[in-house]
């Protein structure tokens, strides 16, 4: 069925498309924040790996638990495909005043998160605000005492370029695995070129 769909798509001249479905959206600026172990963590240290980035806060009772749960499922799917060492997950707090490193460590334990492949980040309010602004994210107090914020997960290729933005509806582990494999395949081809 997939082959037939592909054949139909190839034979249909109704639209001229680009060769990669994952366009280069932009390259986010590098940043250094504080990881859950209290040590500085620089985004550019992940060059060479595909990176999934979410923005959550630990006391959220809105979409953050669902986002983190989906990230857990994605991490499991990637592990089953043997991709754990080629992918790193990042979760950046939207509430740095509360989410200090020790709080982030507790949160990670709740979800059984392996810090080898998934890092939680915090920093000063000023540092976090700068990152939020650069990533087109925001957080503001809501009427219920929580923080209102968009729920997006960002996909970076091994060169640190933003290639996809998922919402919860579209952040499906099998699709994420396919996207990761596509980026790794392209990166491999690029490396192999003389």
């Amino acid at each position: 069925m997939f082959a037939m769909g592909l054949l139909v798509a190839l034979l249909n001249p109704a639209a001229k498309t680009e060769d990669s479905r994952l366009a280069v959206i932009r390259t986010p600026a590098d940043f250094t924040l504080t990881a859950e172990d209290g040590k500085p963590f620089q985004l550019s240290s992940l060059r060479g790996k595909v990176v999934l980035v979410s923005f959550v806060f630990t006391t959220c009772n809105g979409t953050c638990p669902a986002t983190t749960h989906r990230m857990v499922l994605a991490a499991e799917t990637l592990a089953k495909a043997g991709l754990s060492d080629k992918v790193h997950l990042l979760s950046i707090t939207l509430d740095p005043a509360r989410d200090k490193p020790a709080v982030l460590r507790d949160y990670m334990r709740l979800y059984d998160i392996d810090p080898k492949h998934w890092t939680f980040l915090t920093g000063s309010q000023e540092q976090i605000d700068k990152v939020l602004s650069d990533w087109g994210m925001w957080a503001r107090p809501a009427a219920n005492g929580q923080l209102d914020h968009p729920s997006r997960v960002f996909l970076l290729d091994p060169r640190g370029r933003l290639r996809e933005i998922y919402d919860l509806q579209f952040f499906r582990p099998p699709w994420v695995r396919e996207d990761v494999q596509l980026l790794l395949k392209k990166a491999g081809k690029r490396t192999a070129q003389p």
Partner: protein
Amino acid sequence: MTSIRCWTVIAGMLVLTASLLGLATAPAETCLSPFVKRLDRPEKYLYVFCVDADAKDNDFLAVIDVDASSTKYGQILYQLDLGSAGNETHHFGFTDDRTHIWGCSLFSNRLFVINVADDPAKPKLVKSIDSFKETGFTGPHSPYALPGRMLISFLGGKDGGIPAGIAEFANDGRFIRKFEFGGEAPYGYDVAINPDLNRMVTSSFTPPRNYRKPLAKMDLKQFGDKLLIWDFRDRKVLQTLTTAASPLECRWSLKKDAKHGYVNCALADSIWVWEGDAENHYTTRKLCDTGKLPVDLSQSPDGRFLFVSCFASDEVQQWDVSDLKNPKLFSTAKPGVEPNMLHLTGDGQRMYVTNSLLSTMDRSQDFWVRLIRVGPDGMKMDPKFNVDLTKLKTGPARGHDMLLY
């Protein structure tokens, strides 16, 4: 699995299920992209994209008070000057986070990016983008939110001709990429995405070099009759489907697990349905005949009803489409001359209506915004809500698309 993790996973799944259920029931305001954050309260402001009727003054966005408890209910609170005239401001759409509106201009190709989050009563123009310069396309029509981005459908290409296409921009206005139509389906109009099916549908109208002419001089041979079915993630066309002339607004059915959707064929006075089979292969057929020149299409939150504005027969029709083999006309409303855009609230009970289509196609100069109440017995006009757009300081204005906040 540790017991704490077990409970956490269960809690996470419950939250996830609730969240996705919320998403599943949220797509009311049915003309909005499914990626747009929905209102969790009754609307307070109605934004109307307005063309200065004689194109001498600047076009603007009108802010109308629709808070039922307000002393200024039904009044224009503010007019945001867009800084230029003659744009033919037409459709607009929210970004995914509902903080900004992107507005499209059929004559000038300008995209207006408007901040509504900082002060919803007084939106601010953030920037205007020359979409032709960025994309090579003309006649930007539907701004459709993707996560963190906007997808814009265009009606034409270079020199206002064909082929048309679609283009993507980041929410901050940076151009990302474009896809040019071609082959037997070079026309563009609307776009609608069904994330669950990973399918996108685009429709076809006529290019700027045709719609910029007065109605009587338009070439009826230069209108499309095709729908394109896309693999959304791949951004690849899978099928080209034929409908009647000028399929316009595309609406995926909101019924649970539905694999079909609807489009109003303006020049054929009918609504058509596209239907997918178990293997996501699609076919089209006529669903029902409507009044004259059906120009906008909306849907009840449960997917049972379609609402179609019939510009040339001055009526809005409500169709019961719970049985796709036997659609029934359920009720009719007469808002006034030339009803056009419809905007149904999330609860499906209030539908705002404007009455300008295009400055080249309007036959009346009586412009307004009115309200239809939708109840168990059908549609009824609300006689107390009537915003007159003819007595503004800058003279009459043609109100077209609407959004709620």
